[in-house]
C-alpha cells in the first residue's frame, strides 16, 4: 500500500522534542504545532515501550488493540431500556439482608467522609433500623451494618450513592443481553440524601418515593413497554444537555414519553404530586443516564480483554476505575477535590472531595467528555467560553480510541462524541479525564454548594498500566 498523501500538498507539522528546527520552520512560514513532552510513567521506559508493542510485546499489543475494538463495539451495541421501578431488595439479593450500598470503590464506614456518613445515618432512619440520629451513628460505628459498592450489585448512585433495601430503584435492561442496571430516583435539589442530608424532609421524600411515587412510575414504565434510553440521550445531546451536570432536556423528554402512561395509571393527589415532582426536578434523568452508562460499561467489561476503561467512580476518599482486560479489580488513587462555581456563601474550602458513580457518564463519552454539547454549563469550566470548551474537548480526545456515531454534537457540525478511553493513552499523554460534577459540602447535612469539574487521578491509570504491562510480557 503506498502513501498517497505525504507529497500531495504542503505538510503541516507536530513537533515533539528540541525546538531549533521547529523555530526555523515557523520562520519559514510552515504550520507547526508543538507537542510538549515529558517521560510518562515516572520514567519507566521499559513499561512504556511494552504498552505500545515495542520489544517483544508486539503480538500481545496487536491482540490487545483488536480486543479494544471488540470492547468498544460491545459498549456501542448495548441497548439500555428503562422498564420498571421496584424496591431495591427485590432485584439485588444482597439487600435482602441489612446492608447499604454506596458510590465509588469499596470502603468501610471508618474511612467514609462526613457527607457519606450523614447519608448512611439517614438511610438507617428511613429503613427504621434506628430511631434517631444518635442510635444510627452508634450502629454504623459499631460495624454491624455491612457496606458494599453499588457497582458490585449492578447499581450506580450519584454523589454519596447510598442505596438501602426499601428504596425504589429504576430497572434498566439491556435488550441485547438481558442484563440490568439499577439506580434510585433522583431527589432533586436542596436538602437531599445524596448530598449528605438526613433531616425529616429527606426521610419523608424517600418514604413518598417508596409508597407512592416509585410504584406509580413503575406502573407507568411497565405500561409503556419500556423506554429506550440511547435515542432519548441522542436527542438530549442535540438539545444542549451533556447528561451529567445538565439533564434538563433529557428529563423533559423522559416526562414526555412517560406522561400518557402516568396519567393512565395514576389519579388524584398521588398523580398530582408525581407530575409536579417530575416537572420540577431538572436532574431527574441523571440517574437513568447513569444506568445507561453502566449497561454500556459492563457490556465492555464482559468482553474481558483490552485496555478500555469500563467504569469510573468515587467515594469521597478513593477514585476507582475498571479496565476491560484486567478483571473486576478497582484501580484506585486518592480522589481530587472539585473546583468550579459556588452558591452564595460557599467556597472551595467547604468542598467535599470527589463523590459519586456518575463518572460512569464520562466513561461513555458524556458529561465532561462532551462539553461543547452543553454551552449553558461551560461557565463552570475554566475560562467559560465555548472556544475553551472545544479546546478541552479536543484535548481529551488524546486518549480515546473511537467514536459513538449515535451521539453527535450539533454545535460542532454533527461531530460524534469520542468513545472508549484507553488507559495506555491516558498515561502516555498525562491528560486526566475531565468530569463535570456537583460539589457537595464536606459536612453532612449541608447539601450542594456548587458545580464544577474534577479530574480522574492519573495514579489509577498508571497502576492499571503496570498490571497491563505484566500481562503483555507473557
Amino acid at each position, binding site marked *: *500500500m*503506498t*502513501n*498517497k*498523501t*505525504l*507529497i500531495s*500538498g*504542503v*505538510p*503541516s*507539522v*507536530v*513537533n*515533539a*522534542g528540541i525546538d*531549533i*528546527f*521547529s523555530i*526555523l*520552520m515557523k520562520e519559514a512560514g510552515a*504550520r507547526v*504545532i*508543538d*507537542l*510538549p*513532552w515529558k517521560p510518562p510513567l515516572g520514567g519507566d521506559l521499559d513499561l*512504556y515501550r511494552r504498552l*505500545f*508493542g*515495542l*520489544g517483544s510485546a508486539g503480538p500481545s499489543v496487536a491482540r490487545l488493540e483488536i480486543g479494544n475494538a471488540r470492547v468498544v463495539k460491545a459498549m456501542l451495541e448495548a*441497548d439500555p431500556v428503562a422498564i420498571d421501578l421496584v424496591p431495591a431488595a427485590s432485584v439485588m439479593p444482597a439487600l435482602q439482608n441489612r446492608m447499604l450500598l454506596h458510590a465509588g470503590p469499596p470502603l468501610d464506614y471508618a474511612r467514609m467522609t462526613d457527607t457519606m456518613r450523614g447519608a448512611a445515618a439517614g438511610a438507617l432512619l428511613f429503613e427504621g433500623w434506628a430511631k434517631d440520629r444518635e442510635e444510627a451513628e452508634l450502629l454504623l460505628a459499631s460495624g454491624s451494618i455491612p457496606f458494599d459498592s453499588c457497582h458490585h450489585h449492578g447499581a450506580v448512585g450519584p454523589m454519596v450513592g447510598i442505596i438501602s433495601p426499601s428504596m425504589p430503584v429504576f430497572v434498566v435492561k439491556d*435488550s441485547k443481553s438481558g442484563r440490568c442496571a439499577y439506580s434510585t430516583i433522583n431527589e432533586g435539589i436542596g436538602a437531599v440524601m445524596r448530598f449528605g442530608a438526613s433531616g425529616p424532609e429527606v426521610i419523608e421524600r424517600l418514604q413518598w418515593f417508596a409508597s407512592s411515587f416509585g410504584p406509580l412510575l413503575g406502573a407507568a414504565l411497565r405500561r409503556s413497554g419500556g423506554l*429506550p434510553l*440511547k*435515542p432519548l440521550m*441522542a*436527542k438530549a445531546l442535540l438539545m444542549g444537555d451533556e447528561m451529567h451536570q445538565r439533564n434538563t432536556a433529557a428529563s423533559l423528554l423522559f416526562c414526555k414519553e412517560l406522561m400518557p402512561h402516568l396519567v393512565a395509571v395514576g389519579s388524584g393527589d398521588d398523580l398530582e404530586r408525581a407530575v409536579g415532582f417530575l416537572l420540577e426536578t431538572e436532574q431527574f434523568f441523571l440517574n437513568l443516564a447513569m444506568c445507561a452508562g453502566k449497561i454500556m460499561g459492563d457490556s465492555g467489561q464482559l468482553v474481558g480483554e483490552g485496555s478500555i476503561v469500563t467504569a469510573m467512580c468515587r467515594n469521597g476518599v478513593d477514585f476507582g476505575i475498571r479496565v476491560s482486560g484486567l478483571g473486576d479489580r478497582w484501580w484506585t488513587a486518592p480522589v481530587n477535590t472539585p473546583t468550579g462555581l459556588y452558591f452564595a456563601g460557599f467556597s472551595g474550602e467547604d468542598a467535599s472531595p470527589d463523590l459519586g458513580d456518575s463518572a460512569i457518564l464520562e466513561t461513555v463519552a458524556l458529561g465532561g467528555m462532551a462539553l461543547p454539547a452543553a454551552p449553558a454549563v461551560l461557565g463552570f469550566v475554566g475560562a467559560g467560553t465555548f*472556544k475553551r470548551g*472545544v*479546546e478541552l474537548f*479536543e*484535548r481529551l*480526545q*488524546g*486518549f*480515546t480510541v473511537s*467514536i459513538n*456515531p449515535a451521539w*453527535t454534537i450539533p454545535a460542532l*457540525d*454533527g*461531530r*460524534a462524541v469520542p468513545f472508549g478511553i484507553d488507559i495506555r*493513552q491516558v498515561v*502516555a*499523554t*498525562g*491528560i486526566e479525564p475531565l468530569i463535570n460534577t456537583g460539589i457537595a459540602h464536606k459536612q453532612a447535612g449541608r447539601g450542594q454548594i456548587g458545580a464544577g469539574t474534577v479530574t480522574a487521578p492519573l495514579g489509577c491509570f498508571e497502576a492499571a498500566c503496570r498490571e497491563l504491562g505484566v500481562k503483555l510480557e507473557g
Partner: protein
Amino acid sequence: MGDSNLLYQNIHTNSYFDSVTLMRLSVELGKLPGVQKVSAMMGTPANLTMLSDQGLYRQTLPEVGPADLCVCVAYSAEENLPEVVLAEKAFLEAGSTSAPSTTRSATATAVGSWKEGALALSEPRVAFISLPGPSAAVEAKRALDADFDVFLFSDNIDQDDEVILKQRARDAGRLVMGPDCGTAMIGGIRFGFANRVRAGSVGLVAASGTGAQEIASALDRAGIGISHIIGTGGHDLSGAVGGITTRQAAILLAEDQGTKRIVVISKPPDPDVAKDLTVFLAKLGKPVSILFLGMEVAKASGSLSFYRTFGDLIAHETGQVAEIPQVKHHSQGRFIRALYVGGSFAYQAADLLKVKMSVEGKPWTAMGHCVVDFGDDRFTQGRPHPMIDGSLRQQVIHEVLVDLTTGVLVCDVVLGDGSEDDPAGRIVQAVQQARKDRQGTDFPAVIVHVVGTAQDLQGYARQVGSLRDAGVLVADTSTAALESALAGIDHA
C-alpha cells in the same frame, strides 16, 4: 403493490438521528448508480405509513417503533446493492470526525497528544520527533497510529524498533523517515538540516542527510531544482529492514507529476536488498541515478545508472565535472587528515583514501592518513552536533594544522538551516591562528568543499570567499576535495 423495483430495507433499532442528518443520508444514497428512491426516517406510525404508500417499506417482524431508524432504498439491479450497503454504513459511522476542527485549526499552537494534533491539522501532516531514542520510538508508533507520517530525527533507536515502526507504517500507508534522519524537504517544507534550494523536478531518496544536502546544493548551484527530498534513515537498506522506506519513497516520487528524475543515495545496502531494490527501481518508469557510496559500480541499464562517489553522481546530473583544485603549497608532512561533520563524507573519504574510519581515541595524532566523523556519538555526548556548534572540530583543526606531520587537511563546510551562522569562519580562524603558531614554517594545504547555495542565510559565495581569502582551497564537491588531497600528497 406490483413494483418491479428491488427494495433494500435496513432497520436500526433504538438509533436516533435528527431529521437533517437523515435527509443528508437520503441525498448521499440517492446519488449512487441504480438508486431510484431513498427514504431514511424514524419509524413512527405516520412515517411508516408514508413509506409504505411510496412502496418503500414492507412490514417486518419484530415491529418497527418510533425509536428505530428505517433506511429504505428502491434500486434497479442486484449489482447496485453492495455500494448502497457500504455507503449507508460509512455515512452512519462517519461522525464527521475526519475533518479538522475549524474552530481551532488556524490558532492552535500546542496540543497535548498526537490525536489532538490530527484534529487540528489536515493532511499531509508529519510528526517531527527528536526525543531521546527509545522514547522516540514509542512516540513514532503513536504518531503513526494517529495518522501521521514521521520524520524521526532521533538516533539511538535499535534495529528491532525500526523494523516494527516501518512495518506498521507500511501497513498503514504511512512513511517513516529515519531513524537518525537529519534532512528532508517535502512540498517545499524543510525538515532538519537543509539547504534552501530552488524547486524543480529532481527527487531525492536519501539514507544520508549531509549527502542529500551536498547533492541538492550542487544541483541548485548548477541551476537544477529539487522536487522533494525524502530521508530514509541510515539503516533502511539493511537486511532486517529491507528498504521499506526507500521503496515507499521511490513509489511516491515515481507517481509524483512534478518529479522527472529520481536519485537514490545510501551506504552500500545488504546485497540481497540491493538486488531486489535495483529490480524494483528499474520498473518505476522514470530515470533513476543510484549512489551506493563506495560500492563497486554496476553497469548502467535501462533507466538506471550507478555511481560510486558524490562527484560522479553530481557530474552526471549537472553535466559538469568539478574542477580538482591544484595544491600549490603544502608542508613536509605526509599525512592527509580528513575531519568531517557529515558522516557520509567521512565514509566516502575512508573509501577513497583506503583507510578505516576511526572509531576511538585521537586518530589525528597517529602516523598515517585518518578520517574522522565529528558527528559520531563519541563526540556528541552532552554536546551539540558539530553542524550546530563547530567549536570542537575547530580546536582539532588547529591542532592538526600545527602538527608537522600533517600534509593536507580536508574538511566539509555545511551551510543551510540548522547550521551555525558562520561555518567557514571556524576554518578561517583555526587557519589564521595556526599560521601564527607555526611562525613561518611551511603550512599544510587546506582543502574544503562547501555544501550550500546562494539562498542559504550564510551565503555560499560569501563563505567560499572568506575561505579563499584565508588561503584555503575550495572544491565544488566532496569528491573533488579528496582527489585534490590525494594528488597533493602524491606530488610531494
